[in-house]
């Protein structure tokens, strides 16, 4: 009996630390932070809309126990992912969280955007506070296509579905390469000057914050506002006249339509207006650095260079059917 007790005690002493070690692993988020997470993630709080789509595609939505109000209020996400309507809301946005509600869920991990994000992002203070309660926080700030692919790989590792993550990345790269291949036919001298606008009036424009990762640049256009460092800012109508863009694309979230720009006397001498090349993209394909970014790029390229015959609706439909299990149901213009 004494020997049995001794063996059990020794087994606990030697094996316990190993079992403890074995139940955790480390990953590196896009901010370069090394985060220790449980070997198996069964309960995740996901506050960022860009990540929830990937989590769904990785068949891990049943592991999400808490989301943000921003995800719940999205026009698109609850349609693509009906389960979102039943998952408790534990934060207003990626930054403003209800700490007690999160702790009550006892999550294994929390995924959000960090303080480096341009518009919203959880503060370092909040990140440290959540981690202080033993909840690992993964920060995914996506500033480029490469970071987008990296985040998908990382989520694949976290939710242990690396095969699906690779399938998604390969599909995105295929669409990207298809469009880029066709774009080679357009010489630099024929590239269109593009302006991206949003907000309450077309004076609220996207600057050059994203550099060569800007959706217009990826789509083969020249960003006329590349000199402006901000992501989004207000410029005068005179400045827009100086730029004289060939094409204007309007964010799905804007409070106006192409018709309003055509009828606005401020812009009547701009090439994009004179040639009726102002387009508003459907919210169904919007979202910079979500898995849908190739769809948004294909839409832009098709508007910039209709002569290339890029069938963005087919591309969107393929993607929707393959990863969301439904046909593309948005506008097809």
């Amino acid at each position, binding site marked *: 009996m004494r020997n049995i007790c001794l063996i059990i005690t020794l087994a606990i002493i030697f094996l316990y630390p190993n079992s403890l070690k074995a139940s955790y692993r480390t990953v590196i988020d896009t901010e370069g932070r090394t985060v220790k997470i449980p070997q198996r993630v069964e309960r995740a709080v996901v506050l960022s809309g860009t990540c929830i789509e990937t989590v769904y595609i990785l068949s891990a939505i049943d592991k999400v126990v808490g989301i943000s*109000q*921003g995800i719940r*209020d999205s026009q698109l996400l609850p349609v693509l992912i009906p389960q979102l309507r039943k998952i408790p809301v534990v934060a*207003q*946005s990626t930054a*403003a969280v209800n700490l007690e509600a999160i702790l009550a869920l006892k999550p294994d991990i929390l995924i959000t955007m960090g303080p480096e994000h341009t*518009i*919203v992002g959880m503060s370092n203070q909040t990140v440290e506070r959540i981690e202080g309660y033993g909840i690992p926080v993964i920060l995914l700030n996506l500033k480029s296509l490469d970071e987008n692919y990296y985040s998908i790989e990382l989520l694949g590792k976290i939710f242990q579905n690396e095969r699906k993550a690779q399938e998604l990345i390969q599909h995105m790269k295929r669409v990207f390469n298809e469009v880029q291949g066709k774009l080679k036919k357009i010489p630099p001298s024929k590239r269109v000057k593009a302006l991206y606008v*949003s*907000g*309450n*009036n077309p*004076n*609220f424009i996207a*600057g050059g914050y994203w550099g060569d990762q800007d959706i217009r640049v990826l789509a083969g256009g020249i960003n006329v506002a590349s*000199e*402006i460092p*901000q992501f*989004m*800012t*207000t*410029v*005068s*109508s*005179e*400045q827009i*006249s*100086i730029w*004289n863009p060939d094409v204007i694309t309007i*964010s799905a*979230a804007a*409070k*106006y*339509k192409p018709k309003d720009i055509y009828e*606005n*006397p*401020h812009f*009547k*001498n701009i090439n994009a207006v004179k040639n009726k090349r102002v387009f508003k993209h459907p919210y169904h394909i919007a979202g910079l650095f979500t898995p849908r970014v190739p769809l948004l790029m294909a839409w832009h390229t098709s508007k910039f260079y209709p002569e290339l015959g890029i069938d963005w609706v087919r591309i969107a439909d393929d993607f929707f059917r393959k990863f969301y299990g439904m046909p593309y149901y948005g506008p097809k213009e």
Partner: protein
Amino acid sequence: MVPKNKRLIVFILCFLFILTPAISLFIGAYHLPPNVVLKIIAGKIFSNAPASSIENNILFDIRIPRILLALLVGCAISVASACFQAAFRNPLVSEYILGLSSGAAFGASLSMAFLGERFPVQPMAFVFGILAVSMTISLSRVKGESSVLSLVLSGLVTTAIFTAGNYIIRYIVEPEKLHGIVVWLMGSFTAASWKDIAWSGPWILCGTILLFLLRWRLNALSMGDEEAKALGINVGSLKLSLIVTATLTTAAAVSVVGIIGWIGLMVPHIVRMLIGSDNRLVLPLSAILGATLLLAADNAVRTASGFELPVGVLTTLFGAPFFAYLIRKTKGGAWE
């Protein structure tokens, strides 16, 4: 009417009022040489041929409406503020004292955040601005009468309620829409158009003229309610008409450009420091100086290269320290 020793000041103010818009025609992000500007204007006046050049578009569709709107809004908020200060016999009163700005901000935010294209920002800001002031007036009425104190306190209550509503909207709205709300709250002429002038111009001009016609009675009111009553003035109805007119004038201005801070509070004070407290002069000179100052501030923001700061930021940034300097220099202001 103008004292002899003040005539030079009046002349300078009038001169600046004419000079500033004239200079404004020649400045902007798009380089238009003076001879081109003059040629386009001459072409418009002397020939009927429709010019469709980009220069013509810059001048007549972008620059001139913006200049006119800045003049109109500067005039509206300064006159309304001068009127409020005289009617309430209080130098701290601005055109927003009765909760107009918070109501308008709430209406505009509601439109931008949730109501889409069916409920445009301007009418929503206008309606909610008026609604807020009506709420203040009805809250302040005790036994059918409103004292100045109860009006100001009710204004604070209304402001608090609508500000809280606005905070809620800003908290829950998507980040992309939030920027639009923040810019609106700081006031901007970026999108100024003839349509804006057609919408707000008649209100502002009618309101300003009406307040101008009431300037004699404002003087009587400034002496105190009892004195005004002794002069045979129906103080209650006069105050109500002043408040309603000044509110409509300000609401029309605020609804098209957002909230412009400090001009309304500062301008009547500067005028009183320069010319005295006679409302027969304070009102028209406030209109002139308010229009000139706001246009000058807008010129500064629109000539900056690249992105534009909202003009309300500039008026507040420079207005507040300048106002402090004036108060120190005149040992507490020129309020008599």
